[in-house]
């Protein structure tokens, strides 16, 4: 009995040696900064003096037109890009997954390439393509006999353009996930659908969409998190402009924290607001995990 507890203790100790580095690093570089950000959001720095201001920074955010627009834009990106990713992810994967293997991996690779190339490189290329003087878009406008527009300086286009660019940069991830899931669907099911005379649309409706529900939930949660923090595309393409029309929460946080318009209290409050969104997603995730376990 004594040997038993001693073994238990030894196992506990060596386990802590294994997880120790990770736990310490997380505490120092993830948990502590989040906590500090929350504290900082209650203070404001003016003329080098830091004073407690309570919820004033949050009031500033909610009473300022620019920051409200930033919140609206962030939500708008999530509300448009994430559903597009799910719909097109299911459609593309459901149309390719039962074709030749080479074709499947080809489409997957091509759509994943923008992810590999990175947001920075893709944003740079788009800036070249959209250049008001020498960009391809100007050329196509001329070909179609349209008046050339500076897309990046025109608020009516920039939002749609950013939605499109964010979509092309994230769709690869979704297609990889959905095809992997669809390839694991038993062949008998697909066969049965065909024998019953079901077409591709029936296959989507009765097999592919219901059986990839878990991937859809996962995609919804992770892509919401990823679209919500969008920063690079904004910084490199529009700098939040024209006239703050494309500012997002993350870009405004950056402006307040490191830009020309420094206000660390408001920047911290913005960080906390973004963290709250993460908390909502985390809750959803855990609810989903528990439901999964109960279903099993």
């Amino acid at each position, binding site marked *: 009995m004594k040997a038993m507890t001693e073994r238990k203790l030894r196992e506990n100790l060596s386990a802590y040696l294994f997880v120790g580095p990770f736990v310490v690093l997380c505490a120092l570089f993830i948990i502590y900064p989040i906590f*500090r950000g929350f504290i900082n959001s209650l203070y404001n720095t003016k003329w080098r003096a830091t004073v407690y201001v309570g919820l004033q920074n949050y009031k500033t955010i909610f009473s300022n037109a620019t920051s409200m627009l930033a919140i609206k834009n962030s939500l708008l990106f999530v509300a448009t890009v994430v559903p597009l990713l799910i719909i097109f992810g299911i459609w593309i994967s459901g149309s390719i997954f039962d074709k030749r293997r080479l074709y499947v991996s080809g489409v997957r690779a*091509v759509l994943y390439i923008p992810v590999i190339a990175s947001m920075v490189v893709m944003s740079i290329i788009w800036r070249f393509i959209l250049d008001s003087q020498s960009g391809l878009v100007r050329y196509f406008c001329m070909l179609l006999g349209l008046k050339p527009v500076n897309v990046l300086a025109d608020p009516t286009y920039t939002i749609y353009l950013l939605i499109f660019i964010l979509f092309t940069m994230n769709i690869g991830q979704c297609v*990889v*996930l959905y095809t992997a899931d669809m390839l694991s669907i038993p062949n008998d099911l*697909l066969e049965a659908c065909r024998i019953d005379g079901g077409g*591709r649309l029936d296959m989507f409706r009765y097999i592919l969409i219901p059986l990839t529900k878990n991937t859809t939930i996962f995609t919804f949660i992770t892509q919401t998190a990823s679209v919500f923090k969008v920063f690079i595309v904004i910084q490199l393409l529009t700098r939040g402009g024209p006239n703050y029309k494309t500012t997002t929460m993350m870009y405004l946080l950056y402006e307040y924290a*490191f830009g020309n318009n420094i206000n660390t209290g408001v920047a911290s409050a913005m*960080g906390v607001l973004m963290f709250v969104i993460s908390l909502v997603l985390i809750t959803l995730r855990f609810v989903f995990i528990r439901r999964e376990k109960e279903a099993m």
Partner: protein
Amino acid sequence: MKRRGSLGKRSAFDTVSNVLIILFCLLSIFPLYWMVTGSFKYSGDVVKLPPDWFPIHPTLYNYRGVFTNHPAWRWIVNSVSVTLITTAGIVLVSSAAGYALSKMRFIGRRLIFSFVIAALLVPMEVYVLPLYKQVTSYGWRGSVTGAYLAMIVPNLAMPFGVYLMKNFYDTIPDALVEAATLDGCGRTRFFFEIGIPLSKGGIGALAILAGIRIWNNYLWQLLNTFSSKYLYTLPVGVAGLFDTSSGETDYGLRMAAATVSALPLFIIFFSFQRFFTSGITAGAVKE
């Protein structure tokens, strides 16, 4: 695997879908084609409208320019060092923690694993300002060592890595560990002698995904290197070529720099494609 199912008949809907998907693939790859071809054009040709659809007078002039007009070698050295060191650290920290969470029983195990799952959804951007102040207070600023420390150390804890490795160790049957324990092999020894060799696939997937994530960790690198252009990493340097302060105006050169920045990742992607799918899908569906 050949085509699944045996029915040769294909519906019109399916055909149209696949044609549209191929067109979309072309559209999605086109920007990169435009970048690579642009990088081989002289500065006059690259901005010409109507454009040359491929470089008629191909030149390496822009690539020379990237390395002679800008400290691009330094950017490469910085990016490669930071990425390699951080990735090695992430692999060590994550496989140890993932192993313990999967194969060892200890107090606080569920709490730590719940934290891992939660932290997956909290992007660094949320706490970037306090973290920046924190590393500044450590004096990790200004010098090469300082900038490297700031770029490397806070990224060593990667919840996604722990999550991925735990899922990989979960696929090693517990019975195997039990059997080894009965033979007198402790769980710690098991990790080094059997666990690590068996999880090569997981470690490969993690190394690649972590490496790409670190290489592209633009915001954090931008904040920690802005004091000198010799500290820039490649993505920061390349993006900086669009700032007026860089003195650069040539799109050909900018595209060459972008190509240089993306090239290592493409090489890794095409050499290790199988790791990608396993890494991306690992744990997406099951918990």
